[in-house]
């Protein structure tokens, strides 16, 4: 598997760069090849309007979805390890429903001056953090470490509660305003600005670095709680570290692009099928594959029905179904 990684990882990196270049070159606006070259070379005679589209819209958007795809895949791989559950994903602790309820409430109820000042992203992040704290609070048992099963059940309960709150808000809200809320719920990276990128990149690099240094401990966790503890791993502490990393990665992703599902669930399985489950190879490959998938799907969202733009969540769900069925078949064979 190690030798496969040495071939697959550089290949995936090249594919990621190619997909990113495609994401920059193509989009809703039709730009000729000579203009594309002129814009990317920053020539003085490049059309100003098109140059603005590429430099202020497409490039930050492609970088953002790349970072979000990588971050969600990383968070998914870590959550599957922390909970030793192949169905775990970054949203398992109620993060998406918490973020959704907060964002929908803000869009529908708060005056636009407030949402413009504070920003829907920050409100969504706060909702995700609140859901996380509720899930963690419900999972605590006095004098005992967090039980993965209890965490999953608490996450389901918190998710259900926030989902019903979101549905209630959408039901009673003004139909004109709820359309904006629905757009947000389906996820889009449109309108991402350069200033949103540094925090995403910093969080991804720091969290990936921290967990790559602890790859051996993560590997041991796969063997079961007791076996990891017998190997000297403080599993409770490691699990809390993973949960906090997941909240940061997912909260930032949600705040920039809304709810982007499936990446965190499917991509780690794809990477595991390709290079196995050892984290020193699984985490880097998951991140690169996550970036590739999300950049590619975002490009399709922009171009399939151009000039109309499809929500990320809709196309992702469509593309996620076939690999998910394959993974299920693989799991069924293994049982």
């Amino acid at each position, binding site marked *: *598997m190690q030798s496969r990684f040495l071939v697959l990882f550089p290949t995936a990196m090249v594919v990621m760069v190619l997909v990113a270049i495609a994401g920059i070159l193509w989009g809703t606006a039709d730009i000729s090849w000579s203009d594309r070259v002129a814009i990317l070379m920053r020539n003085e005679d490049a059309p100003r309007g098109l140059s603005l589209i590429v430099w202020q819209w497409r490039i930050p958007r492609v970088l953002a979805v790349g970072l979000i795809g990588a971050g969600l895949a990383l968070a998914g791989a870590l959550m*599957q*390890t922390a909970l*030793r*559950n*192949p169905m775990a994903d970054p949203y398992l602790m109620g993060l998406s429903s918490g973020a959704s309820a907060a964002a929908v409430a803000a869009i529908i109820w708060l005056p636009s001056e407030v949402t413009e000042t504070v920003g829907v992203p920050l409100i969504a992040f706060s909702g995700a953090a609140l859901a996380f704290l509720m899930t963690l609070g419900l999972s605590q048992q*006095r*004098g005992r470490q967090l039980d993965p099963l209890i965490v999953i059940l608490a996450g389901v309960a918190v998710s259900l509660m926030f989902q019903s709150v979101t549905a209630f808000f959408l039901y009673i809200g003004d139909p004109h305003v709820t359309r904006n809320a629905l757009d947000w719920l389906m996820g889009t990276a449109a309108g991402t600005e350069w200033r949103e990128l540094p925090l995403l990149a910093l969080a991804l690099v720091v969290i990936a670095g921290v967990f790559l240094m602890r790859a*051996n*401990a993560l*590997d*041991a966790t*796969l*063997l*079961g*709680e*007791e*076996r990891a*503890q*017998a*190997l*000297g*791993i*403080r599993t409770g502490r490691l699990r809390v570290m993973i949960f906090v990393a997941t909240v940061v990665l997912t909260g930032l992703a949600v705040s920039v692009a809304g709810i982007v599902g499936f990446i965190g669930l499917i991509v780690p399985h794809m990477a*595991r*099928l390709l290079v*196995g*489950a*050892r984290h020193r190879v*699984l985490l880097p490959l998951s991140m690169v594959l996550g970036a590739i998938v999300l950049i590619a799907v975002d490009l399709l969202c922009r171009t399939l029905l151009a000039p109309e733009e499809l929500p990320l969540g809709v196309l992702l769900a469509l593309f996620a179904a076939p690999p998910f069925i394959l993974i299920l078949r693989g*799991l069924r064979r*293994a049982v």
Partner: protein
Amino acid sequence: MQSDPALDIRNLSVDVGGKPYVQGVSLAVPKGEVHCLLGPNGAGKTTVLRTIYRAERPAAGEIAADGRDIEDYAYHEWARKCGALVQSSGLLAGLTPSDIVEIGLSALGLDGVDLVLRRDEALKLVGLIQKRNQPADRLSGGELQRCYFAQLLACDPEIYILDEPTNHLDLHYQLVLLNEVKRRSRTVLMTLHDLNLVARYCDHVHLISSGRIVDHGKPADVLSRQNLMEHFLVDAHLNMQSLVINGPVLR
């Protein structure tokens, strides 16, 4: 002057779910001896072992190794000195037997050629070298147990903690692996339910019932007809190294 026991448990009490479960357990395992913690289901055997590999915290008492309290060891330092074969289920998708052995060695800080040599030698010992690159989640229960045994043998700590090590193993591998443990002359504390194996491999037996040590000594002395009737509700006795069973005691 007598040296400190390799493993010394003094007045150990452990609470489970807020209630006392193990109470005042004391036992000492001298260096190089194989001791067995024997008792009926739910007697507290696994809880004592869990406390030794620090998955459980004692409510009272202390555990020392070579005269030093185990709380004074860093977690990874203690794991290098005291390895455990335990009962636990994991997420094995994407792992192979090679990976499982390597994970143990890597967690203890080994790498490079030493890791590869130890890994392959251990996999040969447990008869899994041919299957070393097969998916671990498709191994049988016995093969998986051999895989975890290989991990422990590769790490080869000074103290072996074995919680029902013969689980899922066929007769051949029960004998092969316990012979290997005995051959290494390490300090061993294990739980076993097969009393024939207890009689064959253990130097000393500690009989535990309802969380307390009720008897200890040589296997032939502890596996008395009276103890077996009182604590296992079985009318049986030891003849040489074989258990002769007359039947269950009905109450």
